[in-house]
């Protein structure tokens, strides 16, 4: 089950469609070294006196030594994922933590617990965990391990430990304060470039997301009209004799093209739309990571400024400053490495996704072409030569 040949395969209980295969997160570097396989499936509804919520089954298979067993099965709810994400952000403020699907969908089309919503969320949660598993640092995070392996009661008790709400609030306050002040003036060139890049990227990815949704909407409206178009020809054929076959032929072609359009739409909603949405979320995450790096920088800068004003107690300060300088250096290095990695993956994801979009469209047109060509062949077989063709306008 954990053989290397199954690098991108998952538990058989998960539905696999060809296009969703492409949507599975593909991590390109060193796939043979993967030793942690995670699937998210089987959403189940739980009803208590206070609330209704959904849990998902998480199946983990691993060959790692630090895991007591080689296979785990737990159930987790959305709240648990939120907890995991915040713990990872806490432990690694300048690493790029993958996006979680949003709490609510504001578009208003989807009901809170509709099948469509749950399935979309399940896929995104699956991706989230796998991205963490593939991350060279995050994959070894302790909270991540507990998330994957602990039973429900173990997880709750673990959650209650650690820095409480108050300290987390304190961090936020400090973060807000320092973001107002600085971290910008001594910012290394590289991070200013990153910031500029992310601002533009964020704009563009948001526009792309809107365009993709527009395209989906237009294709759906086209599909709706096409559904009515074919049957009219069949209706007409009922009152004709000579041309009944031709009319029925056209009706059948239109119906086939209609189905092909439906497939095209499905491809869009299974691939392009989720990916673009993820990267919209990623752009927010990255802006946040850059800010946090700036805050760490700001802490150092503040202490350095303070030192400049104090002639005495230099030794005390210099030790603190030393520590802060290390902290800044670590943060910068971590971010730089993760940024390079993120960019590579982004490029790969975009290339794969858009190539897939092009392929989808190609299949659509190829299918329609075949349909109409076969109709044409059937018609020209029995076309008799027309005499007096000049008589006809």
């Amino acid at each position, binding site marked *: 089950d954990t053989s290397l040949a199954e690098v991108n395969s998952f538990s058989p209980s998960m539905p696999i469609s060809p296009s969703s295969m492409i949507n599975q997160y593909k991590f390109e570097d060193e796939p043979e070294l993967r030793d942690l396989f995670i699937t998210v499936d089987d959403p189940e509804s739980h009803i208590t006196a206070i609330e209704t919520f959904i849990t998902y089954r998480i199946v983990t298979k691993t060959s790692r030594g630090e895991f007591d067993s080689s296979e785990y099965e737990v159930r987790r709810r959305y709240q648990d994922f939120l907890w995991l994400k915040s713990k990872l952000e806490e432990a690694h403020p300048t690493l790029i933590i993958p996006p979680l699907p949003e709490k609510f969908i504001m578009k208003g089309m989807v009901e809170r617990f509709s099948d469509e919503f749950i399935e979309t969320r399940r896929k995104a949660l699956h991706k989230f965990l796998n991205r963490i598993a593939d991350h060279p640092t995050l994959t070894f995070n302790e909270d991540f391990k507990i998330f994957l392996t602990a039973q429900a009661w173990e997880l709750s008790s673990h959650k209650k430990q650690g820095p409480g709400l108050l300290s987390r609030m304190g961090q936020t306050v400090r973060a807000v304060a320092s973001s107002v002040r600085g971290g910008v003036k001594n910012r290394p060139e590289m991070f200013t470039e990153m910031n500029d890049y992310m601002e533009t990227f964020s704009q563009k990815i948001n526009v792309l997301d809107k*365009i993709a949704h527009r395209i989906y909407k237009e294709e759906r409206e086209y599909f709706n009209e096409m559904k009515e178009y074919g049957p009219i020809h069949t209706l007409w054929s009922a009152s004709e004799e000579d041309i009944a076959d031709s009319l029925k032929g056209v009706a059948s*072609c239109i119906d086939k093209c209609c189905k092909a359009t439906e497939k095209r739409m499905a491809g869009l909603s299974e691939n392009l739309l989720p990916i673009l949405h993820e990267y919209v979320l990623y752009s927010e995450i990255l802006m946040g990571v850059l800010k946090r790096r700036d805050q760490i920088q700001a802490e150092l800068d503040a202490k350095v400024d303070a030192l400049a004003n104090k002639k005495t107690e230099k030794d005390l300060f210099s030790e603190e400053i030393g520590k802060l300088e290390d902290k800044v250096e670590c943060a910068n290095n971590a971010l730089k490495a993760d940024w390079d990695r993120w960019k590579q993956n982004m490029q790969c994801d975009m290339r794969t996704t858009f190539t897939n979009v*092009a392929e989808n469209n190609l299949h*659509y047109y*190829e299918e*329609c072409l075949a349909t109409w060509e076969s109709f044409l062949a059937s*018609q020209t077989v029995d*076309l008799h030569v027309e005499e007096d063709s000049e008589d*006809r306008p």
Partner: protein
Amino acid sequence: MEDCLAKKMEITVSEAEKRTGRNAMNMQETYTAYLIETRAVESQSEGQCAPVDSLWRRYSEFELLRNYLSVTYPHIVVPPLPEKRADFVWHKLSADNMDPDFVERRRIGLENFLLRVASHPVLCQDKIFYLFLTQEGGWKEMVNETGFQLKADSRLKALNATFRVKNPDKRFTELKHYSDELQSVISHLLRVRARVADRLYGVYKVHGNYGRVFSEWSAIEKEMGDGLQSAGHHMDVYAASIDDILEEEEHYADQLKEYLFYAEALRAVCRKHELMQYDLEMAAQDLTSKKQQCEELATGTVRTFSLKGMTSKLFGQETPEQREAKIKVLEEQIQEGEEQLKSKNLEGRDFVKSAWADIERFKEQKNHDLKEALISYAVMQISMCKKGIQVWTNAKECFSKM
């Protein structure tokens, strides 16, 4: 078909021009005039190029010609004119009669009309039609001089006949149903086609938005930049390609529209038959009642109630001389009536025979034309698919290089 005009003469509607003039109420109006060019075919075969004659006509003159033909040849399925106002539009086309695309399509439709008439075995021999093509001035007066308006049946009369006729030829009844169905189904088809075209336009044009975003995004990317930029270009090509595609489809829609309007021409022939049949039935009925009256007067028995009968009972019988006079009048009327009935019967049978011959001719033409139209539609779809394949193949290559 050897004598048909279309073989002897090349006819084209080659240009359309905007004109201003004064109408019947002396108000200024703008209209479009169409240039009809004709050229004799025979001299061409001798290696000479015959001179081109030309004259200008406006749409209302075409209408007058068609009305004249409809009235003068009621047993013929007269070819229809292209629509007066743009109908079944989707959002891109304007419904404006002055829109150049509409004018161009109307020009083609008018040429088509003339060619249809010129290749009809009966209609092509009509003098007024010939003059329409060759004599610009005074043509209107000549048409009106034929007095065809007087021959036209009133709408009310026709409606009345349709409701009251008892024994129309079954084939005409069936034909009427067919033409109703044809009209209904083609209208429906054209409406949905217009909506499908509108939506297709939307799909293609939205892809055009990719171009700009890709271009702006490519500015901040090093390795992906080229792929994005060139893919964007192909998306622009894709978005632009829909204009020509839908323009071509309009011509297909026009072919269907012609047969939509032909349905009305078919109905007109059916109506004429019903009118003649009704006329015949009324004449027969009238004759029968006159014969009965005559018999009653002759034998002195009153079988049917009549006011005259009652008054004569009340106020006294008429004299034998008076009765004789009445009988004589009736006998004359009866003889006239029988002759009329005979000729009406003959007319009716001739009408049915010649109408049905033209209807068979029309059916063959319709089957041929519609089949070809459907084939041309398939060809258009194939061309659209091939263009799509090319664009997306190019785009795929660009994306795969990102």
